[in-house]
């Protein structure tokens, strides 16, 4: 694309967003797809995704034949940037758009592509993920949910946890054990694009520390799923799951795009510090508060600079993977600290919770409690430090 075309497209996106940005719904929206807790929130966000898709701003680089836009990836990136800048709500079908969708386009059959892709984009079919299990939080290779072949079906038993959007999902990307033999624990795993509306699959909402519902524990009780929903061959589940994680972590491209969360950053905290009052004065004018705020600004800028340094090989010779491998730890811990700090800016109102009287409807309190989702999920911060100590610094195993 020529620079003039890029500018023109950007202006067009900006204009569309300004005309179509949804009005404040009058209730507190979730900040990520993992936090969708009520039907009201879900319907609102699904409508928004449909609208974005119909405008042609989702899956822009996916093939036209399956419902995508067939356009350069750059255009989708411009849309993503403008959506973030316009602070519009996120599009909720995150697992479909960014993990399952690219995976199906990459290795699915022609029939899979025709069946799934368009409805992922339009939010007609919501997708969820069945990787983690109650007894094996971060140890995916040790998955114990069993899938036993019976004719042209697999019979599934066991349970998965942290199933975001589980109550709304039509399909699940599922990793299950099809064999207990083989050279190692990974060899017995297989990967399924499993339908959720099957007798014996029961997504049970779990109440979070915030008091809201946001994810499920999904029970499988002799649930029969068609054998042809397996992606890859029997026993290849681990490598398909690793490929999925590459999409999940953004290590490879191909995602449908769209804003996947309302990203709260340090500028939001600075803005709050100007607006909120402690003892009758703007919090930002209190010297001790100010000092704490500067520490957080430095941490946020430092994280961004570390990302920039990581791109220069000459400056990363001693521990080449330190920055990349610590980004989840640094990012999630910073968000926890920022949101915790946000409460302290509000004086006695820091004690309020989701309600009209709370500052910004209580979103800061909710954000702080929700921030633990990232410091715990995907391997706790403490596990991250073990991994960094062992794999980056070469220290002995604990």
């Amino acid at each position: 694309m020529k620079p003039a075309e890029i500018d023109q497209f950007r202006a067009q996106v900006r204009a569309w967003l300004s005309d179509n940005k949804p009005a404040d719904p009058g209730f507190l929206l979730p900040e990520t797809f993992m936090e969708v807790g009520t039907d009201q929130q879900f319907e609102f966000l699904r409508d928004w995704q449909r609208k974005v898709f119909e405008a042609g701003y989702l899956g822009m680089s996916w093939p036209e034949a399956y419902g995508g836009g067939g356009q350069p990836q750059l255009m989708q990136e411009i849309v993503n940037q403008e959506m973030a800048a316009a602070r519009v709500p996120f599009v909720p079908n995150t697992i479909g758009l960014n993990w399952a969708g690219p995976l199906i386009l990459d290795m699915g059959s022609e029939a899979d592509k025709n069946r799934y892709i368009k409805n992922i984009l339009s939010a007609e079919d919501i997708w969820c993920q069945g990787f983690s299990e109650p007894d094996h939080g971060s140890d995916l290779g040790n998955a114990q949910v069993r899938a036993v072949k019976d004719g042209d079906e697999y019979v599934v038993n066991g349970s998965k946890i942290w199933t975001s959007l589980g109550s709304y999902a039509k399909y699940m990307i599922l990793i299950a054990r099809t064999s207990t033999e083989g050279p190692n624990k990974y060899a017995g795993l297989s990967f399924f694009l499993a339908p959720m509306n099957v007798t014996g699959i029961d997504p049970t909402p779990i109440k979070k520390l915030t008091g809201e519902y946001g994810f499920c524990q999904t029970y499988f009780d002799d649930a029969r799923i068609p054998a042809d929903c397996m992606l890859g061959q029997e026993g290849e589940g681990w490598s398909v799951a690793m490929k999925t994680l590459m999409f999940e972590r953004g290590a490879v491209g191909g995602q449908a795009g769209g804003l996947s969360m309302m990203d709260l950053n340090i500028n939001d905290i600075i803005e709050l510090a100007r607006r909120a009052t402690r003892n009758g004065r703007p919090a930002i004018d209190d010297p001790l508060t100010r000092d704490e705020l500067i520490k957080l600004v430095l941490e946020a800028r430092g994280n961004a600079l570390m990302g920039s340094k990581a791109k220069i090989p000459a400056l990363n010779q001693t521990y080449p993977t330190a920055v990349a491998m610590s980004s989840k730890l640094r990012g999630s811990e910073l968000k926890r600290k920022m949101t915790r700090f946000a409460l302290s800016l509000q004086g006695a109102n820091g004690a309020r919770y989701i309600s009209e009287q709370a500052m910004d409807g209580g979103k800061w309190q909710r954000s702080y409690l929700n921030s633990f989702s990232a410091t715990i999920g995907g391997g706790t911060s403490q596990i991250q430090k073990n991994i960094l100590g062992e794999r980056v610094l070469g220290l002995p195993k604990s």
Partner: protein
Amino acid sequence: MIVFSEEQAMLLDTANEFCQNQAPRSAVRDVINAGTAMDPLVWQTMVDLGWLGISIPEGYGGLGMNLADAVPIFEAMGRQLMDTPLLATTLAAQVLIQDGSEDQKSTWLHKISAGTIASVAYQESDGNWDLGAIDVALTPQASGGFTLSGTKILVPDAEVAELFIVSARHEGRPVWCLVPSESLGSSQVERETVIDETRHSYCVRFSDVLVSPDDVLPQCHLLTFEMASMMLIAAEMSGGLAGVLEVVVDYLNTRKQFDKLIGSYQALKHPTVDMLLGSELVRSTVYHAATVWRENKSASAVETAIRMAKCCASEQFSEAGDRGIQFHGGFGFTYECDAQLFLRRALWSQYQLGDERYQRQKMGSLLF
């Protein structure tokens, strides 16, 4: 954003190799015991490499590069706990380049490029980090010249310096003046005891030293000098932090207690990871500061980036030094353990030109 220049890339390799060969960590105590400010052979090699003239324009015998390009050299030196008059001399050259007259530059920059040692005297005994709070006075003489009176402390390498650039108060404003070492008697230069034993630090007393009007610099940009100094000190600290991390990781991988390598204990492993991330952070902020300095975008951008680097370096290096002692257990309490060398270096550096709290205080008005 960090931009790594070709000059920096080239110097990074040369400097790492040079410092590891010339200043193995096992020799740090020998350098301390020798008590001299420098090894003449090492100094001559540095002169031959052109390091004395890195930021000096080619017309004055230098390499004509940017001061930011010198950052990898100071980082490499810091990692080996090297102390040479390069830091003091580079900063003195910087003052001449930014504030000196044509005559002053052509007289001194040629000499510095060729190895003459110079040192900037700016700190006063009240310990105030505000470089504009100056008691040393430059007073006009009836005869037309000036006299310089007062005391500067923490003047690096004063015993070997041939030139001092001294900040003084003149008619209520700060000025720089040049004082060649021959204008001072030996009793006026006295070695100080400082926490980092690798440093050669002096108290210099100026008592009615005659200063010719030709030796007063036409300009005095204290803030620019402060920023240049902090950029190089933070670079040195970044190296020091990488060095102490290396010492700690080695010990955690060799020392056994209760039949296990102590690195397997999470109580040591996790804070060592914090040290690693601190080191990555400091290095990133240092090279960011160098980038902003080179691009010279705006005074406030430069100041923010450099204060950020000095702030992070002060906090992270001193913490790593502190933990480095603790993680060596009983050995850490002995003089023989290298961890103390790094802690002492960290503390010395932390209190040059403002610790982390001071930097944050200064940053408030730059950020909000």
